[in-house]
């Protein structure tokens, strides 16, 4: 019974944050661009989210006749499933998690590598050249950034001596991992932006060049799933950064642990939005060059140095 309540709580938190982010992002972008943003519907425009959801639900759900129908319908679902599954292994509080897996980080990496299929298959099944170009860019970009996304976390794993998220949070009681693992954090953060294909790394959907990239042909609720999936991805990456590098739910005891966890998560969500507001999109080859020639060696050096220091201190 308790586990069902926790599952419902985790799903509720994740989905309501992701949906609410659509409004938060528009308001924050407006703030940084000296505009007002959506402020008409409800107090401060909060009900804009509900209006948008109702609009998406009532739009025509068009499946193109030239598409590969089963794959086209399946693709947005894969994105939602892989991201929501990862929330199961994240500890929201000391006893507030669905499943404390002893391969937690690997579970996250596996799910994020399965998430690539959603974008690739969505683009391919649309049978549209712009969607296909978007899908190809996405598969190359996400495969590249996955490699050192995993490598950058291995320093944390070595220091905590475990793949389990709960153990890693406990191991940070003496001090957050952001200080010894600063380069790991930098690499993971950049790889996280590329994995969620957010601006500045949104070249799979680059609306200036590719209409809407891989989801050009999607409409109605299926588009909504891609859209919410992107925000779920941001929430997930922010929550993982908070858990692995900033002590998760640890914090002064005058507030409940869940609050600290959500506060840290919201800080990184804000950072994601600020990056969107301030940075231009790099070219495709520049993105690849940055990945293989800067971040990959940095992740490897971080791994080797962490290992050497740990052996030296033993």
């Amino acid at each position, binding site marked *: 019974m308790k586990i069902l309540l926790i599952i419902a709580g985790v799903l509720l938190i994740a989905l309501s944050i992701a949906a609410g982010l659509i409004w938060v992002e528009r308001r924050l972008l407006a703030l940084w661009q000296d505009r007002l943003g959506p402020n008409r519907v409800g107090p401060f425009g909060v009900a804009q989210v509900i209006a948008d959801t109702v609009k998406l639900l009532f739009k025509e759900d068009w499946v193109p006749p030239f598409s*590969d129908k089963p794959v086209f319908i399946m693709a947005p679902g894969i994105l939602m499933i892989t991201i929501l599954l990862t929330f199961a292994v994240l500890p929201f509080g000391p006893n507030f998690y669905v499943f404390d897996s002893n391969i937690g980080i690997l579970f996250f990496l596996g799910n994020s590598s399965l998430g690539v*299929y959603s974008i690739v298959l969505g683009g391919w099944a649309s049978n549209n050249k712009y969607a296909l170009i978007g899908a190809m860019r996405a598969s190359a970009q996400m495969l590249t950034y996955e490699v050192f996304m995993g490598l950058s976390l291995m320093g944390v794993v070595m220091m905590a001596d475990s793949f389990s998220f709960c153990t890693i949070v406990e191991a940070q009681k003496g001090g957050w991992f952001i200080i010894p693992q600063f380069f790991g954090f930098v690499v993971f953060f950049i790889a996280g932006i590329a994995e969620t294909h957010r601006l500045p790394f949104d070249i799979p959907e680059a609306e200036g060049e590719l209409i809407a990239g891989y989801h050009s042909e999607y409409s109605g609720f299926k588009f909504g799933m891609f859209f919410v999936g992107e925000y779920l991805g941001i929430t997930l990456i922010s929550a993982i950064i908070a858990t692995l590098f900033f002590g998760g739910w640890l914090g002064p005891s005058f507030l409940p642990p869940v609050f600290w966890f959500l506060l840290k998560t919201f800080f990184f969500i804000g950072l994601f939005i600020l990056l969107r507001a301030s940075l231009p999109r790099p070219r495709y080859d520049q993105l690849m060059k940055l990945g293989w020639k800067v971040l990959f060696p940095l992740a490897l050096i971080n791994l080797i140095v962490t290992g050497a220091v740990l052996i030296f201190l033993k």
Partner: protein
Amino acid sequence: MNIFFYIAAVVAIISTIMAISGKNAIHSLLFLILSLLAVSVIFYLLNAPFIAALEVIIYAGAIMVLFIFVTMMLNVGIENKNGNKLTNPRKWIVSSILAAILLVDFILALKNVPASPSVDQVILPKQVGISLFSTYLLAVEIAAILLMAGVIGAYHLGSQKKKVTHRFLEKK
């Protein structure tokens, strides 16, 4: 545990059959991914969570994405023109005989080997790492050399001199 094992095994077998009998290349690849995921579930049930995770990350997540990437680029997904050739029963004779011999061999071998004790304790990533870098060090290093050769080969094939395509910049 048993019932989960049989569910995963049935899913793996059915999806593999669908993968080799389908005519649409991408659909076949998707069934193959499903089969790999089912095998990963079996590994997990056999108390090997680390291998289960690697199966998903490496096979289902990385290698199969490359397969799909290539299939997408070559655009053979929608219509496979060689599909009818494979359904010709004559093509199957030799391979079926060889597979049958292997199956008989396997069953006889299984009969003679004493049943291995089922692993009760969960094998954690740490134990796998320690045995990889002590007992199986040689195999790890050989694999590393093979991968290095692959990387150098790919670098050699992929590298090319910078081409100038603008007519004013061309050197005559």
